């Protein structure tokens, strides 16, 4: 274990740096004299804590709703009120209970009350603007009915449409239509059997070329890529070191594999190094044999926080302790980096240093599916040993062609500059939106490069009110609460897109301003000047 004095001695090295949660209203000053790009990135991540009264009021609100939840459960139990939840038949009441009542307490008593803010039916393309079907509830959200009216041109800040490839104009989709005419829509087989089409091979080569690695393999479903391939890579006797805030697909894959899982604090290199040292020194729990493999699982951009992984430090750690790295670039591929190649380009890191690069096509490419890329031996092994490869149906041809055309567009291979224009437009939108939000006084999490912008709302009442008020003003937002986030940190998550024009962003910001004043959401205590670049320069520690 590292003692504090050892820590101080090691401050100079760029391997050990701590960036745990912030103290009150302080910018994170991460140490780390490193190369300019990498250390500049780290200084821009902030996780500001809310003032104390906000936390107290949040818990007060939850306490009151919980008390009323108990009251309503009591009323339902003594049948003073009709129970809408699933129940057993009369004859089965003496059996072992099928529906565990208390576990659904949160769903029954908190989620149901404000359920109208989720699962909203959309009846158009999820582009920069979309159409919603209006629905009302007569019995406080237990059942809904559609009124028949459509709400047109709602600005979409919730779709993962980072580069704007969710489009339906005929000239962009010409190749997709041709491929559908040639191959049809269903493949009717797995890739191992008879579903390996020429277009799949073309996509594999294109993905490998795009990422700058030897070889890659694509799968029909992004979630299944993670959950079905990790069991093929690690097994019993291996160690997985996974970040605190990893996605469910990674956690599921890790649990399915049977390896030992240890969780390190989010983006905290000290915690990771401590665990690596302990793993290498002590070995497996009882026998103290060395671990067969140590796999570090991280994501490129964490979608609930908007924070970016500290890739160069993790690569240095992995080389020092001889571990493997699994990088899930679901949100970062196509969306970060000067030419859209993901976090490896953002941190100027050789893609060959990352052992397993994984990503999805759902976000920046407007399609569906996932990929795993890396050395040729790895990908060849996965082709025969992975569950998803052996049993999962192959990707549908029009979807494959959509990915091919999107990737060629980003790389510039189709002869236009449309791809690079979109990547630059996204970067500009991100910078502008984040700077304006901070200026207004909202608390925002995450790095300044991430297209995911979580705006903290904290209180459960404000979560529902925010979503409803923004919809009234024709802006569609996604709000998230417990259990996807910690209980006291409910948030609204904005996903920016290259297809959002400056006017749309200004409209959204204008409405955000109004709603923030109505709901008292502007509780940030950091003073941001209107020229954020200037502010950052002033705080940049000079490399001595």
């Amino acid at each position, binding site marked *: 274990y590292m003692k504090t004095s050892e820590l101080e001695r090691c401050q100079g090295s760029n391997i050990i740096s701590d960036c745990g949660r912030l103290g009150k209203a302080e910018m994170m000053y991460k140490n780390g004299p490193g190369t300019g790009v990498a250390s500049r990135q780290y200084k821009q991540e902030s996780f500001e804590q809310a003032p104390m009264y906000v936390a107290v009021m949040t818990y007060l609100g*939850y306490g*009151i*709703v919980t008390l009323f939840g108990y009251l309503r459960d009591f009323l339902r139990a003594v049948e003073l009120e009709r129970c809408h939840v699933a129940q057993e038949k009369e004859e089965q009441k003496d059996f072992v209970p099928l529906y565990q009542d208390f576990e659904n307490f949160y769903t029954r008593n*908190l989620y149901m009350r404000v359920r109208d803010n989720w699962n909203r039916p959309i009846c158009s393309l999820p582009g920069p603007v979309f159409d919603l079907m209006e629905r009302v509830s007569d019995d406080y959200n237990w059942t809904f009915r559609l009124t028949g009216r459509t709400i047109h041109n709602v600005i979409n800040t919730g779709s993962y449409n980072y580069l704007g490839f969710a489009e339906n104009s005929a000239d962009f989709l010409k190749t997709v239509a041709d491929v559908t005419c040639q191959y049809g829509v269903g493949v009717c087989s797995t890739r191992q059997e008879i579903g390996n089409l020429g277009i799949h091979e073309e996509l594999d080569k294109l993905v490998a070329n795009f990422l700058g690695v030897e070889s890659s393999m694509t799968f029909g479903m992004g979630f299944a890529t993670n959950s079905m391939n990790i069991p093929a890579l690690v097994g019993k006797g291996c160690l997985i070191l996974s970040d605190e805030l990893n996605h469910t697909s990674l956690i599921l894959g890790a649990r399915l594999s049977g390896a030992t899982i240890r969780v390190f604090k989010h983006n905290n290199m000290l915690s990771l190094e401590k665990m690596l040292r302990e793993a290498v020194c002590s070995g497996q729990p009882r026998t103290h044999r060395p671990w067969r493999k140590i796999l570090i699982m991280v994501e490129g951009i964490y979608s609930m926080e908007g924070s970016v992984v500290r890739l160069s430090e993790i690569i240095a750690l992995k080389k020092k302790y001889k571990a493997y790295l699994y990088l899930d670039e679901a949100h970062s591929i196509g969306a970060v980096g000067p030419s859209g190649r993901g976090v490896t380009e953002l941190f100027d890191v050789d893609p060959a240093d990352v052992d397993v690069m994984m990503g999805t096509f759902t976000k920046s490419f407007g399609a569906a599916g996932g990929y795993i890329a890396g050395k040729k031996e790895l990908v060849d092994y996965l082709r025969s040993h992975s569950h998803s490869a052996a049993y999962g149906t192959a990707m549908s041809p029009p979807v494959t062609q959509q990915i091919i055309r999107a990737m060629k567009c980003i790389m510039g291979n189709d002869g236009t500059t449309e791809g690079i224009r979109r990547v630059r437009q996204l970067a500009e939108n991100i910078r502008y939106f984040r700077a304006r939000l901070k200026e207004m006084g909202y608390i925002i999490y995450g790095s300044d490069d991430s297209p995911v912008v979580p705006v903290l709302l904290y*209180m459960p*009442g*404000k979560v529902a009110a925010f979503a409803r008020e923004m919809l009234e003003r024709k802006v569609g937002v996604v709000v998230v609460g417990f259990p996807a986030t910690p209980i006291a940190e409910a948030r609204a998550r904005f996903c920016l897109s290259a297809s959002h024009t400056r006017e749309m962003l200004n409209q959204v910001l204008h409405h955000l301003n109004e709603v923030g004043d*109505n*709901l008292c959401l502007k509780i940030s205590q950091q003073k941001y000047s209107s020229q954020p670049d200037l502010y950052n320069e002033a705080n940049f520690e000079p490399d001595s």
Partner: protein
Amino acid sequence: MALGDYWKQLSWFYYQYLLVTALYMLEPWERTVFNSLLISVAGMAVYTGYVFMPQHIMAILHYFEVVQ
């Protein structure tokens, strides 16, 4: 109209109260229950203060020997 402004301000404060205590999520009858509980407890506190304040003040003044 000044009265209209006051009414708007008052309803904004009531809205903030609803949001902070999460009463915004509850059904109208639940809000009524909670508000009446709150008002009755607050009313009882005020009434107790009204009844016992003279005695308390006299006791304090007696202690500090301001009045015999």
